[in-house]
């Protein structure tokens, strides 16, 4: 009962936020509202007991995306132009209404939330629930599905992240930079003593937490994606407080590019090794003495690859955006 109540409140907050985003013209406020939107979705996932998804949504959606979008508007402008509508667009409106009505009609055929007879619950899910802990030795079923049973999907996700990083580097990277400065908010701010001291205190804690999330992913909510995001958040905090040059002295961009490739290489490499040892691609059972030990080792390595790749790619994207307005 109380959960339904919380669900309704969160969903109505999400709807209000979405409408507010549509109606605003100040891009800064819109980005903040996007962060709130992600955070509300994360709360909704947490209420639905999908803790891993909630964790990722909070870290990626509410955390890093907000920072990346802020870095983007620091390069462009903060105000959306008002589009004056002289005549009503009846055709688009009717298309939207009809599509929406069809979609709502489609939901009527969907099984109820948590229905045990739903196709999603009858296909492979019972197998995972029965066998996952036994076959991989990991208490957190989400991690064993993500990294082992569906390892190929996750490889695809990592490659997508990697491709995004490469695309940003191809478009914005390189030596030629815009010469007229003044757009770069990150560079010019002299930050106060309080901020610098607290940042120095917090950054090691954030890094330790990221490592905890990375290696605790087998046992609880967490894993490579979240850990990579949190770790890059630590460096981004450092960049914001101490400046871009200091951050590039800590982690040179060339090393970051190598790390991004290394993460994907670890993941694919584990697959190649399993083939060489006589198994299928990404079948970790052949890696260790026993099946369970092999699965455990494989999942650990793959998660490490994911973590390194996500960390490096996000940082590459942020540093490229932030370094854009520099002379």
């Amino acid at each position, binding site marked *: 009962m109380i959960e339904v109540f919380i669900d309704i409140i969160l969903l109505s907050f999400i709807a209000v936020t979405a409408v507010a985003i549509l109606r605003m013209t100040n891009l800064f406020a819109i980005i903040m509202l996007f962060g709130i939107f992600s955070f509300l979705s994360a709360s909704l996932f947490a209420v639905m007991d999908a803790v891993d998804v909630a964790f990722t949504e909070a870290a990626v959606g509410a955390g890093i995306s907000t920072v990346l979008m802020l870095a983007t508007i620091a390069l462009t402008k903060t105000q959306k132009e008002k589009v004056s509508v002289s005549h009503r667009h009846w055709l688009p409106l009717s298309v939207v209404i009809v599509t929406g009505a069809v979609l709502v009609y489609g939901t009527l055929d969907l099984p109820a939330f948590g229905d045990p007879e739903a196709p999603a619950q009858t296909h492979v899910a019972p197998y995972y629930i029965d066998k996952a802990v036994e076959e991989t030795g990991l208490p957190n079923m989400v991690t064993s599905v993500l990294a082992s049973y569906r390892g190929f999907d996750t490889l695809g996700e990592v490659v997508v992240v990697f491709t995004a990083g490469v695309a940003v580097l191809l478009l914005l990277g390189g030596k030629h930079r815009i010469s007229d400065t003044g757009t770069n908010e990150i560079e010019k701010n002299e930050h*106060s003593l309080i*901020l610098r001291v607290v940042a120095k205190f917090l950054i090691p*804690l954030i890094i330790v937490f990221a490592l905890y999330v990375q290696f605790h992913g087998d046992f609880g909510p967490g894993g490579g994606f979240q850990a990579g995001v949190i770790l890059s958040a630590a460096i981004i905090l450092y960049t914001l407080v101490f400046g871009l040059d200091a951050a590039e002295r800590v982690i040179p961009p060339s090393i970051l590019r190598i790390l991004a490739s290394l993460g994907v290489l670890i993941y694919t490499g584990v697959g190649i090794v399993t083939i060489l040892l006589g198994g299928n691609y990404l079948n970790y059972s052949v890696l260790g003495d026993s099946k369970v030990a092999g699965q455990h080792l494989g999942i650990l390595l793959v998660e490490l690859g994911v973590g390194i790749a996500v960390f490096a790619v996000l940082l590459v994207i942020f540093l490229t955006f932030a370094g854009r307005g520099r002379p």
Partner: protein
Amino acid sequence: MIIDILSWILLLGGGLLGIIGGIGMHWFPDVYSRQHAAGTTDTLCAMLILLGLALQAGFSLVTFKLALIFIFLLFTNPTASHALANAAMQGGLRPQLERTAGGDNP
């Protein structure tokens, strides 16, 4: 029993402070006084709720994690308020020192 009552007092106190902070955000006239409402009440509100939850959880790993969040909030919340106020000041926003005659402040 006593711990239960104590934790509920803390939880409700935290919730009350949160509501007061929310009212203050709308009530006060300019950025700095709104900061005051949001920053000070939010810090104590989160602290009280975390303490209440820690008492509910008893002595376990959960309590330790709550204590870590407590320390984290203790440092980040005031710092964030400070950074925000500082940014507003540097951005050229002056605090409103007197009641404006026709202002919307009650």
